[in-house]
């Protein structure tokens, strides 16, 4: 059969070239593949789910088998989710696998980003691929946010209201931005638009950028862990794509699928039977976004009650905490390779991975950002922490208000100092 193809498409030589591509074998190099395979699982399960999902909020009567919703009038979008969960073969399983894979996708992108940054794999000539990769992470977060709001349950409605507020808070442009995005006053016409964004626009962009990301990686070849006897700058050593990397990747993809499928059997990832459909002016206690946005929730909770008018607009907590701070972090992410290069100008191409503590500036920057995000994430659950520790919510709130500005710079300084102390190892 391959001969038949080759006679028509002449792919023997390119196939051999591809099959002989070398991949260094270390587990930390597999994190990007986890992101890729979880994206494939998302697309496959997503196509199935899209067949049954209806993005309209018009009321319909649910006539399926769920006891909680039998005969009730529900927004069509929520009714389609109940139907998927109770009346479609494999529907609930695929809903849960889809949701679990989204957690893995975003987590893998973050872990992969950390590996790339800590080993210096974003340095020349790989800056472009780093920027593309960071964009992929942001698109993944956007997909995760739009996706977990598609069921239009009470948590989704609350989350979308916060988004509406954040858009409104933008100086001067707030009202047209929010009304334009939502197609009217909240909730407006947001569900069909969110649907298009989640099902078409973002996956298309992600797939396209992933392809470019992989093509550039293939062209530039992989970074290499330092090895005695091999000049990592000239050669990359490892296993060939065929058969060994292919076997490893296949095993990883199947293992990932198995883990996600088992988790769907054990954890009700996306079940919404109790949460119920979103109703205007209705919310629930313990309402938070998904884990990767907990940190924004944390900023909104601990930001002090300060709002001031300046130059004909308002600077409010949601603006500073929910819009400006995230934008600043994203900008820092994009700028980082160039910031580090100014601090540590090292001309020429770099193909050998570094130890995470090799560059004190880098160790400090990563430690500072990680500590900030972890603290803010914890602050997003400050009421749960207060309850668990038997403390008052107010004292926990103040603890975070003090820790969040102080701890990240301290952590950055400490990590950089530790890295410098270890510095003799690499001279």
């Amino acid at each position: 059969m391959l001969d038949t193809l080759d006679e028509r498409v002449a792919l023997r030589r390119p196939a051999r070239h591809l099959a002989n591509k070398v991949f260094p074998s270390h587990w930390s190099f597999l994190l990007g593949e986890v992101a890729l395979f979880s994206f494939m699982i998302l697309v496959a399960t997503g196509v199935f789910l899209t067949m049954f999902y209806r993005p309209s909020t018009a009321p319909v009567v649910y006539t399926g088998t769920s006891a909680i919703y039998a005969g009730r009038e529900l927004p069509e979008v929520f009714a389609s989710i109940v139907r998927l969960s109770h009346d479609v073969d494999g529907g609930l399983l695929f809903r849960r696998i889809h949701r679990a894979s989204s957690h893995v996708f975003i987590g893998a992108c973050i872990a992969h980003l950390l590996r790339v940054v800590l080993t210096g794999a974003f340095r020349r000539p790989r800056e472009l691929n780093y920027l593309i990769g960071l964009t992929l992470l942001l698109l993944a977060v956007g997909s995760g946010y739009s996706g977990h709001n598609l069921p239009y349950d009470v948590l989704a409605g609350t989350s979308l209201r916060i988004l509406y507020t954040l858009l409104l808070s933008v100086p001067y442009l707030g009202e047209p931005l929010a009304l334009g995005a939502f197609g009217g006053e909240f909730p407006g016409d947001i569900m069909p638009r969110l649907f298009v964004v989640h099902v078409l626009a973002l996956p298309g962009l992600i797939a396209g950028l992933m392809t470019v990301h992989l093509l550039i990686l293939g062209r530039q070849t992989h970074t290499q862990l330092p090895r005695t006897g091999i000049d990592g700058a000239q050669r990359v050593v490892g296993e060939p794509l065929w058969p060994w990397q292919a076997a490893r990747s296949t095993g990883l993809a199947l293992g990932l699928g198995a883990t996600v499928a088992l988790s769907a059997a054990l954890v009700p990832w996306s079940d919404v039977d109790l949460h119920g459909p979103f109703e205007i002016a209705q919310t629930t206690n313990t309402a938070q976004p998904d884990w990767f946005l907990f940190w924004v929730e944390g900023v909104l909770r601990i930001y002090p009650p300060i709002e001031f008018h300046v130059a004909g607009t308002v600077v409010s907590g949601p603006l500073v905490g929910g819009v400006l701070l995230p934008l600043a972090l994203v900008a820092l992410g994009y700028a980082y390779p160039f910031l580090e290069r100014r601090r540590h100008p090292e001309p020429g191409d770099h193909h050998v991975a570094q130890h995470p503590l090799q560059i004190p500036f880098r160790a400090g920057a990563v430690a500072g950002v990680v500590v900030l995000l972890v603290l803010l994430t914890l602050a997003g659950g400050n009421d749960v922490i207060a309850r668990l520790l038997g403390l008052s919510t107010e004292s926990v709130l103040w603890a975070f208000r003090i820790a969040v500005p102080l701890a990240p710079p301290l952590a950055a300084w400490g990590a950089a100092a530790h890295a410098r102390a270890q510095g003799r190892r690499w001279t």
Partner: protein
Amino acid sequence: MDRTRSQRARSLIAWAVTVVAVVLPWSATAPSRAQTGEVSAAGRGGEQLYQLYCATCHGTDGAGIPGAGVGAGPPLRGLEVAYVDQVLRTGRMPILEPSVGVVDQPRFTDGERAGLVAWTSSAFDLVGDLPVMREGSVAHGQELYGRHCAACHGSTGSGGTSGDGVTVPPVRGLDPVAVFEATRVGPFEMPRFEAEVLTDEQVWDVVAFTQEMTTLEATPLGIREMNRVTMTVMAGLLLLAVLGVVLVTGRPVPVPEKDD
């Protein structure tokens, strides 16, 4: 080489299982269990129980002990009988340890409670009637619960906080009559819902839904619907499990060795 790898995989699984086992009780947000549980000794009369467990704070004459903190308590005279029944059913009263504000296991048997309520009702002229349990519609209950109750008690009935330091108790699977009574009476910080806002039939619907919260099909790990904090913990465990798969996959392949 093989042994080290499988040992590592096993230890990872063991670790993950241990963490799950530790986290699960929290994720289920079970109310804390009192060490004493039910008060023992059958057949003690209502008056006896009152003098033993209630008089210290509410006074032997039900007029209350003025002040705040331990040893003080509001008067019971003229209170609604449903209020007294409710706090006894949920174990909120009597307070045997200093931890107020946690819905606990009921301290008395059904018979003892009934006797205590009957005696208190006649001794202190409590008003109103005790409700009689009725079946309700789970479907209507979800709609009403979401509209009136979820804001405080959470859409999955797991409770939360309300204002600085006020704990909202979980209601899933709570004694159904206690739920009805609490809705009508509005004990402690809870607002009251009278018939014009929620009819009797509607309250029994809400009760039916709170029971459904614990009879809903659970996963083999005993997890039902999660709030986002629980989901974050689970996502963390899932990512750890995937990391385990990555570590195992990243090991060198097991080549059946040549016999030299």
